[in-house]
């Protein structure tokens, strides 16, 4: 049992922290959010330069072959700094799909470019009405000649409006909610008959509704095996969920630090408001939520690399339950303890509130994962 971070991991954490502190302050971030693409290509290049995009990928593609705990460090920093760049969509989802199931040609085409910061990805999966059910895929892919034709709608595709390549799930057999018969394709966002409608999210990321109207792709677009996409989707989404847990831990840490600082400096009735026991105990509960959430994020990231599928599902859902509850608890309390100031656009706390609110629901809210946690309760933890 050892919770120590390696020297490399500590160095990594310090590097990112320093970068965020010097290049990603509140005003810079506001400008980035308002820019047409919704994120900064300069920041993205810098992230690539620091080696963060290559962290989990194999050395043969230019990566570092790092562990999920390594990526966890990046995600915590992203959460703390509220970065809006498409790291989760590109590294956590799209890149993971290609690393796990891509052909040699697909990996060679995309991963080196991804790692250099020249290629971004998004996962076009969720459909209107699907909620968090990963099996629900109604977008149809039918064979035409050597290739395929895609027809259907995807909703809420994180960073789908800016991604170079979309990983698209499609139904090639079975009914709309069957696990079997789901197939994955790589589709260029700028391919003909792909229509993208972009939105800003409440937490200032970008999301897209994407329509595929008779989109033709060649045989080289097939990712993994026909009809067998579901286990891969579940595995990659579990991975991305572990990363989201780590991002939430970073954001919670910021919310707690900012709130604690406010309790120490804000004066009312002639004293710092942190001298009031009613507020002290609430702050302590926020700190406890943070420690418990952090434990579960650690567990999730460690188990991604070591657990069998059954245990992985169970632990990831356990982690997301705790993270979702902690996100809500800390975000709400941080605004409450900041008083009116916590409500304002000009304070980072309100932005963190919004991000935490969304993270609580990303890849399934607490209720979704409570159901899955109970359904996967066959694993012994002795």
């Amino acid at each position, binding site marked *: *049992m*050892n*919770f*120590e*971070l*390696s020297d490399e*991991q500590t160095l990594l954490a310090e590097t990112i922290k320093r970068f965020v502190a010097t290049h990603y302050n509140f005003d810079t971030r506001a400008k980035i959010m308002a820019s047409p693409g919704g994120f900064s290509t300069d920041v993205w290049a810098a992230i690539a330069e620091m080696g963060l995009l290559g962290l989990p990928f194999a050395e043969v593609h230019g990566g570092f072959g790092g562990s999920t*705990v390594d990526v966890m460090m990046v995600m915590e920093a992203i959460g703390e700094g509220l970065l809006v760049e498409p790291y989760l969509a590109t590294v956590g989802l799209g890149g993971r799909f290609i690393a796990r199931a891509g052909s040699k040609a697909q990996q060679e085409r995309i991963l080196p470019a991804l790692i250099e910061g020249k290629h971004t990805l998004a996962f076009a999966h969720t459909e209107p009405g699907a909620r968090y059910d990963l099996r629900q895929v109604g977008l149809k892919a039918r064979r035409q000649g050597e290739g395929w034709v895609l027809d259907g709608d995807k909703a809420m595709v994180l960073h789908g409006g800016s991604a170079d390549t979309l990983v698209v799930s499609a139904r090639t057999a079975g009914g709309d909610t069957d696990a079997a018969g789901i197939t994955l394709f790589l589709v260029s966002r700028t391919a003909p008959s792909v229509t993208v409608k972009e939105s800003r999210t409440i937490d200032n990321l970008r999301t897209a509704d994407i329509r595929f109207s008779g989109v033709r792709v060649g045989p080289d677009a097939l990712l993994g095996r026909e009809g067998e996409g579901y286990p891969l989707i579940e595995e990659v989404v579990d991975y991305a969920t572990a990363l989201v847990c780590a991002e939430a831990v970073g954001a919670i840490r910021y919310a707690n630090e900012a709130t*604690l600082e406010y*309790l*120490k400096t804000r004066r009312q009735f002639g004293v710092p408001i*942190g*001298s009031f*026991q009613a507020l*002290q*105990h609430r*702050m*302590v*509960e926020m*700190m*406890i939520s943070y*420690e*418990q*959430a*952090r*434990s*579960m994020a*650690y*567990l999730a990231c*460690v188990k991604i690399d070591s657990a069998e599928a059954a245990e992985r599902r169970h632990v990831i859902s*356990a982690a997301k*339950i*705790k993270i979702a*509850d902690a996100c809500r608890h800390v975000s709400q309390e941080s605004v409450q303890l900041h008083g009116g100031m916590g409500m304002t656009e000009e304070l980072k706390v309100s932005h963190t509130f919004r991000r935490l609110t969304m993270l609580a629901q990303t890849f399934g809210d607490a*209720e979704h994962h*409570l*159901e899955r*946690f*109970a359904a996967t309760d066959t694993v012994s*933890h*002795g």
Partner: protein
Amino acid sequence: MDLTFTDAELAFRDELRAWFADHPATDPPGRDEDALYAWRRDYQRQMAADGWAAVHWPVEYGGRGATLTQSAIFFEELSRAGAPLPANVLGLLLAGPTIMVWGTPEQKERHLHPILTAEEIWCQGFSEPEAGSDLASLKTRAVRSNGHYIVTGQKIWTTLAHYADWIFCLVRTDAKTDKRQDGISFLLIDMKTPGITVRPIYLMDGGHEVNEVFFDEVKVPAENLVHEEGKGWTVAKYLLGHERMGTGRIGVSKRELVRLKEVAAAARKDGKSLLDDPRFRDRLSRVEVELMALEITNLRFLDQLRRGNKPPGAEVSLLKIKGTEIQQSLTELMMQAAGPFAQAFRPVETDPGFDRFTAALAPRYCNLRKATIYAGSNEIQRNIISKLTLGL
């Protein structure tokens, strides 16, 4: 980062498991408290004989010099084996380690071995009627006279005083200090000394585990002072860190959780298992997840303590708060699982078929309300974290 046990930790666990397998505890003898306590005492004796009674004690005193992680493994395995918590729990966890650090060579020689073997049971004389959470306001006074301290006053909530041979006490040796803490001393008192009266306090679960202890001009040899006169608060702070360390009870809660699932799986609601009832299951799952998280949090803190080589600080307050909340939640869910059957408490006439397990659920629920009150109420723990960790 590596969340698996090291080879040394696994070897320790396996050796312990093998010992428990070779020395299974007999079934607890019904609900007679004296018989139950004798059963626990006997089991501790067996453990002590093979060096398992106090793994965290140094080898020279009959322990195994276990690391904090190994100690955590010990309590986990103890629960897993269904073995009873050692009878002399306050001696092993509190009196012993305190005497080792602050006691004189004579005190170590005199007391440590009988603690280990449960020959002499210990209790803790801290709380007083007017000094609960505000411990430093204690009034029991000790006046030095001719090589003795003459102790007069009252202690309350004294767990195990009715079985104890010794009590470690905080007493006021100087009432005139600027800081109240400075006038407090730490004394070891033989419970057989004339002038000591133990009076039981019965709790709402019908049980007798705590007492009032009265001291009427009790003559205590001065060599029973631990550390210096007036420095008892330093000793007490050291001891309280250890006290809270044990209050997380993670192993016990894990076993309770398994039992709760068994009870809920057997209970029917609308023809289905209660365990499959989403409203019940969600509550249970949230407690289970908190417990999973606390297990990791605990190990993280132990790892920090090991690396920092620091005594336990405010971190243990967090473990106490969360651990006791989880314990209480589990008893609450047990009651819910039993439903209407949780009402029966004791047979009016002798009835061999009486369902003792279910009947114990409501008393246990009542009894466990103590967990968020004792060892420094959870509100006091929040004050400690607020001051020491958050700097408020």
